[in-house]
């Protein structure tokens, strides 16, 4: 069987495939005659540079995107609101324009609210002092 195969293989090898058309040969010769402006070495170099450039751009875009994402859109959540006990200052009585008397008082307290971004463990604390002045009319008998 192997001997048969050898004969068959030898017979196949003796066949002559048809040659490519003349236009193929002519086209190849034109290609060979062109001045070599970009052989494979410069092609590899260009490809390498393009690859490095593309990776740099990707890195910058990714980094910029991450930075913008973390900086521009913080995920702060309200974790607490507090208010201090109001304090009262009482001043000496004063006479008003209409001749009546009143005692000025000042009430002040502080309010604060806290937000926290769990992803960065950062806190935003909003501190707000509050103050009110009032006149308490005095009756003089």
């Amino acid at each position, binding site marked *: 069987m192997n001997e*048969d*195969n050898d004969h*068959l*293989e030898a*017979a*196949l*090898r*003796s*066949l*002559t*495939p*048809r*040659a*490519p*058309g003349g*236009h*193929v*040969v002519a*086209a*190849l*010769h034109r*290609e*060979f005659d062109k001045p070599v402006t*970009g*052989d*494979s*070495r410069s*092609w*590899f170099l260009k490809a390498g540079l393009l690859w490095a450039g593309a990776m740099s751009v990707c890195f910058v875009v990714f980094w910029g995107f991450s930075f913008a994402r973390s900086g521009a859109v913080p995920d702060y959540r309200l974790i607490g609101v507090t208010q201090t006990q109001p304090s009262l200052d009482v001043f000496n009585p004063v006479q008003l324009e209409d001749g009546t008397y009143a005692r000025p008082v000042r009430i002040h307290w502080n309010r604060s609210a806290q937000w926290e971004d769990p992803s960065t463990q950062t806190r935003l604390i909003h501190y707000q002092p509050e103050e009110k002045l009032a006149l308490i009319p005095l009756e003089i008998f």
Partner: protein
Amino acid sequence: MSDAHAHQDWRAWFAENGARLKLIARQWTRSDADADDVVQEAFVRFWKHQRHMPGNPNALVVTSIRRAALDLLRRSDRRTAREKAVAADTETVGWFEPEADPRLQSLAESLELLPAEQREVVVLKIWGELTFDEIGEQLTISPNTAASRWRYAMETLRKLITARTYE
């Protein structure tokens, strides 16, 4: 990278090998004209980008031919007029030069009748000058499968030749 084939005369190389390259291309194309196109495109691609690579250029050229042929097949669904014009040529243009010996002529015609998967192994082994390992790489099959297809092809060829002899 050093040029491994700096002194190679590629015109002479193609003149010597062009016919067998076209036969290889013919295995994956639908017409003689397509095979010409594929050989031209594949060889230009090889010559521009791979001719400096070390080793035997044959395997690289065969790989280039296969890629170009597959590219053409993918594009072929979108092509119309030209293919229709050459469609008739598919059946009329033989793959080999006419042989004076009727047994060889019969063998040439029988080869074209083989199942495609057997035929491409035969062509790659004889005219592609590839080993079964290299054929396996080209066709993404195991070397054992390539060798098995070769044996089936030889068996089928014998049957075809015998049948034609007694026609």
